[in-house]
């Protein structure tokens, strides 16, 4: 048994591309084809998994069909392959002898072993089939959400078994934390100082650089918004435009114009790349300016539309309330006046007190009260102390 396996191994070392194929193949084949098969095997290089592409040759005109046949066939056991191999007429004598010997050995091998080989070949074939299938990237996916994360594919069998030979997963987590912290510390110490080499001094934009672009980055992550570019500019900065042209530009901008800040703000994300979008915006602004300069129609009949904007009025602290010397004097004068008025009434008797007025009216002589209004009978008779009291208002 062992010798059979050994000889198999030996025999296949010459053309390792055929090792996999040793286990394939089904049909017994006629001996005439063996030489052809051997010749084809010789022509192939040992590490290749693909058939080499030969130059178109008149002699080999019949070979491609043979090769295709060989590749499209699945051999169930080495015996089938060897039989097929011997059928080719392109192989040398030595090869033929060796193959014949190997075939003999295979046939001598016990049926049990042969069955195992066939089983193994079937298993390998069925399990490798999905892996061989090419992976098609999905179209129209959002954020590559359906992409499989290959890092997470694990063989979960026996993963939770603890063999008493390791620290616990919590300990591993802690270690991982330390590693991470140290990694960032290393970055801080070794790499971040190097960034200073890239530092550029801030140069304020000149009068000619009127456009302010804003880009978005997600730090290398894929994001549908990272292609978006936003541009802002003030029409007043475009010095080549006259006032009328600037007004036309604002009208052209429509709701992108902010009348409170006097700024036009536009964005673009229709193209796939940031640079394309920026180019698009630049072209758009160029066209707008060109249209604004075009004197054929200055849109004079259309008023500037600001319906898209809500004007907010912020209340401001009244300036005249601020405490200054004049204000202090003014307040002093007002208070003096008020005090004078009060004092004048207090001393002159003009001060009106509602409560006192009511008391006086209640204490007025009966005749006056009677004149004021008809006296109404009170239930339970008039009390001595309240002879002059007017009846309570009805509630």
């Amino acid at each position, binding site marked *: 048994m062992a010798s059979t396996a050994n000889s198999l191994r030996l025999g296949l070392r010459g053309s390792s591309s055929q090792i996999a194929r040793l286990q394939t193949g089904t049909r017994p084949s006629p001996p005439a084809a063996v030489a052809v098969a051997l010749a084809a095997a010789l022509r192939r290089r040992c590490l290749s998994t693909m058939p080499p592409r030969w130059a178109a040759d008149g002699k080999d005109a019949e070979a491609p069909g043979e090769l295709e046949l060989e590749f499209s066939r699945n051999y169930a056991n080495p015996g089938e392959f060897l039989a097929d191999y011997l059928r080719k007429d392109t192989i040398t004598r030595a090869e033929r002898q060796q193959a014949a010997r190997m075939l003999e050995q295979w046939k001598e091998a016990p049926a049990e072993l042969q069955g195992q080989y066939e089983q193994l070949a079937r298993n390998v074939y069925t399990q490798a089939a999905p892996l061989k299938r090419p992976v098609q990237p999905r179209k129209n996916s959002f954020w590559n959400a359906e992409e499989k994360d290959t890092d997470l594919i694990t063989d979960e069998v026996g993963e939770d078994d603890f063999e008493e030979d390791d620290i616990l997963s919590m300990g591993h987590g802690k270690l991982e934390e330390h590693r991470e912290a140290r990694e960032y510390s290393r970055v801080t110490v070794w790499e971040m100082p190097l960034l200073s080499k890239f530092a550029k001094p801030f140069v304020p934009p000149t009068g000619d650089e009127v456009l302010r672009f804003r880009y978005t980055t997600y730090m290398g992550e894929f994001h549908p918004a990272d292609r978006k570019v936003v541009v802002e500019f003030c029409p007043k900065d475009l010095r080549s435009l006259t006032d009328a042209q600037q007004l036309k530009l604002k009208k052209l901008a429509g709701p992108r114009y902010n009348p409170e800040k006097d700024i036009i703000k536009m964005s673009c994300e229709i193209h796939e790349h940031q640079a394309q979008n920026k180019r698009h915006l630049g072209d758009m602004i160029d066209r707008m300016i060109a249209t604004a300069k075009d004197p054929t129609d200055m849109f004079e009949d259309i008023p500037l539309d600001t319906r898209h904007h809500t004007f907010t*009025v912020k*209340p*401001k*602290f*009244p300036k005249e*309330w*601020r*405490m200054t010397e004049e*204000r*202090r004097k003014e*307040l002093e004068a*007002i208070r003096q006046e*008020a005090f004078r008025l009060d004092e004048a009434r207090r001393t002159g008797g003009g001060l009106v007190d509602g409560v006192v007025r009511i008391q006086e009216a209640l204490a007025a002589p009966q005749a006056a009260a009677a004149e004021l209004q008809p006296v109404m009978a009170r239930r339970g008779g008039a009390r001595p102390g309240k002879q002059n009291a007017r009846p309570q208002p009805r509630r």
Partner: protein
Amino acid sequence: MAALRQNLTGALRGSCPGARLQWQTLDQQFHALRLGGSSSSSSITAAAAKASTSTSTSRCMSTDAQNDSNSNTSGSQTEFRSIIASPENTLRIATHARPVPLSPSYFSRQPVFNDSYLTLQKLMRSYGNLPVIPAGQVERVAWNTLEDTRQTLGEHVKASDYAKCIELVKRLHAIHPTLKPEAVTAALQAFKRNVQPFSNVPNPIVVDKFGRALGVGRRKASVARAWVVEGTGEVQVNGKNLADAFGRVHDRESAVWPLRATARVDKYNVWALVEGGGTTGQAEALTLAIAKALMAHEPALKPALRRAGCVTRDPRRVERKKHGRVKARKMPTWVKR
């Protein structure tokens, strides 16, 4: 004292007398502690020297004990020299080590607390006669509570002991700050709470260069900022006059209540911004804001404003709804089936 104790324990640990030498009892140790530094160390080291010379089974677990005794007394110096002279006779690897506690209170129930208590007592004996400042002027400090101490020390400190301890702490804390020794300050530091609520004082409200004082008040979900400036009694809330800002007369009254309660309505102008919440909340947030700003102008009005109920923030909020109830408190009606 501490140095002495270190000496003592080091001596005990390093060159402990052998099996034939009798152990010093804890009582003796305390006795030695209570005697002066020099005498106790000499006695112990004398004993050690005797052991080293008389017998060959002295232990040398640590050298620092030897150094200590070396530096302290002449007796031990000679002994050390003798050790150096003939190391093969005197030094021998210990057959077993016996750790000796650092603190003599080790075998009591609350060793750390006892140590600190003893330290305080000693400080009290030393500095108890320093002048103290009146109780009202002592800096307010939040001391650790009994529970805190038990938690941090991990010892079951008796409440009565702790009360006595804190009494000592407060007495030491009352020593006049200019005369307070470093040792006292350091010892008291251990009793201070980590977070001192009394040191957390808000920034005082000031009157700015335009004569305005800004006060902020909150009530329910409303926040009000009021700039109070001397004036003639005009009020603007969010740029509107008081009648436009608050439909109810009651709300208007509560908004200017600090001014009314102190008879200052015609003395100040108020310019306020209010946001959040409803009308009542906004009006009462204004009360607090105006009161705070008014106190910046006239700090003496604080008692009057407090009596008028304008100083304290009303902390009540909407009570949350609970599950199983219809509202915060209301239970679902009882249904027969």
